[in-house]
C-alpha cells in the first residue's frame, strides 16, 4: 500500500482507489485518525461521523469493485454544518439548532451520496454563517493552522481548516458575502463561490436568500473543478436554480492564458490594505502576465458602497429567514408563561450576539418609515454595482483582486468592533451582490501567513476563472505548501 500521507488531493486519491492501491475504508480510517490527532489543536468539526463514514467507505469499496467508480467515490469530505444531512445533526453552530436532526438531505448531499463520497463530519462555522472569523460559533472557535493564535476566517472556517490540515480531502461551504473565499484565502486552500443559481440551495439553512451559494473548498484547482462537476445543476426544488447545462469543468484546466484580458479593479486595493498582501498580489499578477494574459487597470466606481449595500440587504433577508425559529417546530424552545414570552425568550436565549445584531439591523431596515430609505435604496445601488460588472465583462475575461485586505487576524482582535469585522469581506462582498462567480486561490505568503488571490468571472463564467486559477497554480508551488499541526 502506498503512503497515504501523500494522498492529499481528490484526483490523486481517485487514481489510487481506481488502481486498487488503497481502499476507501483504509483512506477513511487514515482521515478519521488524523481528525483525532489534529482536532484538539484546530477544532474544525462540530460533529465527526466516524461510524457513518466507515459504512459509506465500505459501500464505496463495493462500488469500486463493481467497476463503477466516479471522481468522488470513496473520497472523505467534510460538510459545513449549515447543509442539511439526514439523520446527522445540523447545528449551524447555534444553540438554537444544537440538537436539530434534519429529516431530509440537502440537494448537494443527494448528489454526493449518488457519487459515493464519504462524509467524515460537519464543520464549525460562524453562527448561521454570519461572521468572518468562525469566532461567532456558539460552541468554540476554530484555529488557523498557520498560526493557532489567529482566526481561520469565516464563516466556513471549519471547512477551510479541515482541508488545509488534511482532516478531509475536500469540503463544502456556503458563501453569502465571502464565507468560502475569505477562509480559503486565510488557510491557503482553493475556495469557489459559484454563480448564483448554479448550485441548488435546497436543504441549505437560509441566511440571505438572494446572496447564498454553496461551493467547494479544496487543495487545488483541479479538485475544485471535480467538486463543481458533482454539485452543479438545475434543481426544481430551488426556484432560483438556473436551468443551464453543466460543462465538464475539468476540461477548462489548460495552463495557457494567451489572448486573455484580465482587469485589475483599482477600488479593491482599499485604504488599510496591508502592504504584504498588496505586494504578494502584485507579484502574482506579474506571473499571470508572464503566462500570456494582458492585465489592465479597470474601475468599478460603486465598489466603496458594496459594504453598506450588503449589510442592509443581507440582514434584511436574514431577519425574515430567521423568523422561523420560534421554538415551536424544532430547535431550542424556552417555556415561558405566555406564547409571546416563550417566543421572545426562545429567540433571545437561542441566538448569539452577532445573529441578534443582524436580525435587529434587518428588522430596522425593513420597518415602516425606513424601508424606502434603507432597503430599497440598497437594492437600487445593488443594480448599479451589477451593471458595472456587466460592463467590465464586455471588455475583460476576468477580474483579479486580493481575496482579503489583510492576512488572518488574531483571535479576539475584532470581536468588539462589528465594522472592523465586516471590513474583512470588503473584496468578496461585491461578487455576491452581483451574483457572479469568484474563486480564491493560494497567491503566496507574507510573514509566513497565507495570501489569497480572487479571480472573478461573469455569470456562468466558472470555466474562465478556473482556467486562470489553474494556469497560476501550475506555474507556482504555493498550493503544495502545507500547514503543519
Amino acid at each position, binding site marked *: 500500500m502506498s503512503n497515504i500521507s501523500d494522498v492529499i488531493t481528490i484526483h490523486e486519491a481517485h487514481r489510487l482507489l481506481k488502481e486498487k492501491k488503497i481502499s476507501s475504508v483504509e483512506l477513511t480510517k487514515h482521515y478519521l485518525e488524523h481528525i483525532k490527532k489534529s482536532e484538539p489543536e484546530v477544532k474544525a468539526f462540530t460533529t465527526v461521523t466516524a461510524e457513518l463514514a466507515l459504512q459509506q467507505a465500505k459501500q464505496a469499496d463495493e462500488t469500486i469493485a463493481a467497476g463503477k467508480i466516479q471522481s468522488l467515490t470513496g473520497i472523505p469530505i467534510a460538510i459545513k454544518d449549515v447543509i442539511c444531512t439526514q439523520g446527522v445533526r445540523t447545528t449551524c453552530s447555534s444553540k438554537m439548532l444544537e*440538537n*436539530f*436532526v434534519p*429529516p*431530509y438531505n440537502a440537494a448537494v448531499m443527494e448528489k454526493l451520496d449518488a457519487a459515493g463520497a464519504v462524509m467524515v463530519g460537519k464543520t464549525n462555522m460562524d453562527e448561521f454563517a454570519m461572521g468572518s472569523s468562525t469566532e461567532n460559533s456558539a460552541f468554540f472557535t476554530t484555529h488557523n493552522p498557520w498560526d493557532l493564535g489567529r482566526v481561520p476566517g469565516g464563516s466556513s472556517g471549519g471547512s477551510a481548516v479541515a482541508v488545509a490540515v488534511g482532516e478531509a480531502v475536500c469540503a463544502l461551504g456556503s458563501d453569502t458575502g465571502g464565507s468560502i473565499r475569505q477562509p480559503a484565502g486565510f488557510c491557503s486552500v482553493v475556495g469557489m463561490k459559484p454563480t*448564483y*443559481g448554479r448550485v441548488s440551495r435546497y436543504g441549505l439553512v437560509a441566511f440571505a*436568500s*438572494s446572496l447564498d451559494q454553496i461551493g467547494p473548498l479544496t487543495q487545488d484547482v483541479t479538485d475544485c473543478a471535480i467538486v463543481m462537476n458533482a454539485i452543479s445543476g438545475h434543481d*426544481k426544488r430551488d*426556484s*432560483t436554480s*438556473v436551468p443551464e447545462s453543466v460543462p465538464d469543468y475539468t476540461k477548462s484546466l489548460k495552463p495557457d492564458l494567451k489572448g486573455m484580458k484580465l482587469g485589475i479593479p483599482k477600488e479593491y486595493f482599499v485604504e488599510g490594505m496591508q502592504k504584504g498582501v498588496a505586494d504578494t498580489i502584485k507579484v502574482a499578477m506579474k506571473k499571470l502576465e508572464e503566462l500570456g494574459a494582458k492585465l489592465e487597470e479597470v474601475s468599478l466606481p460603486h465598489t466603496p*458602497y458594496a*459594504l*453598506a*449595500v450588503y*449589510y*442592509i440587504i443581507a440582514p434584511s433577508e436574514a431577519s425574515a429567514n430567521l423568523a422561523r425559529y420560534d*421554538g*415551536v*417546530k*424544532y*430547535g*431550542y*424552545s424556552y417555556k*415561558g408563561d*405566555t*406564547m*409571546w*414570552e*416563550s417566543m*421572545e*425568550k426562545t*429567540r*433571545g*436565549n437561542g*441566538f448569539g450576539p452577532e445573529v*441578534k*445584531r443582524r*436580525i*435587529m*439591523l434587518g*428588522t*430596522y431596515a425593513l420597518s415602516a418609515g425606513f424601508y424606502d430609505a*434603507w432597503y430599497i*435604496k*440598497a*437594492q*437600487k*445601488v*445593488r*443594480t*448599479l454595482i*451589477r451593471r458595472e460588472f456587466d460592463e467590465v465583462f464586455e471588455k475583460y475575461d476576468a477580474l483579479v483582486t486580493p481575496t482579503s485586505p489583510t492576512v488572518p487576524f488574531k483571535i479576539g482582535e475584532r470581536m468588539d468592533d*462589528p*465594522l472592523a469585522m465586516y471590513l474583512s469581506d470588503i473584496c468578496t462582498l461585491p461578487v455576491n451582490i452581483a*451574483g*457572479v462567480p469568484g474563486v480564491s486561490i493560494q497567491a503566496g505568503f507574507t510573514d509566513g501567513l497565507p495570501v489569497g488571490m480572487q479571480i472573478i468571472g461573469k*455569470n456562468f463564467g466558472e470555466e474562465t476563472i478556473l482556467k486562470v486559477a489553474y494556469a497560476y497554480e501550475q506555474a507556482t508551488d504555493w498550493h503544495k505548501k502545507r500547514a503543519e499541526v
Partner: protein
Amino acid sequence: MKLTREEVLHIAHLARIALTEEEITRMSEQLSHLLEHFEVLQQVDTEGVSPTAQSVDLSSVMRGDEIKPSLPQDDVLANAPRREGDCFRVRAVLE
C-alpha cells in the same frame, strides 16, 4: 444617526427578541455606529434606477400542481419541542 433605547426596544419587539439591559445598551451603540457608516448610500444618485431583488433572470418560477409524497409525519414532528398526537403543541394564542 442615533438609535434611542425606545427605538431599540421597538425593533426588538418587531423581531420578537428578548434583550437584556446590557444588550439594549450595546445594541443602541453598535447599530447607531453601523447605520452612521451606511449613510454613505444616501450620496449615491439612484434616480430612475430600479431595485435588484436577486441576480438571475428568472421570474415567477412555478411548479406543476401535482400530488407528490411528503415527508412522513413522524419525521417532521421528531424535532418538535412539544408534540401532541400528530400536531405541534403551541402555547395558548388567545388569552
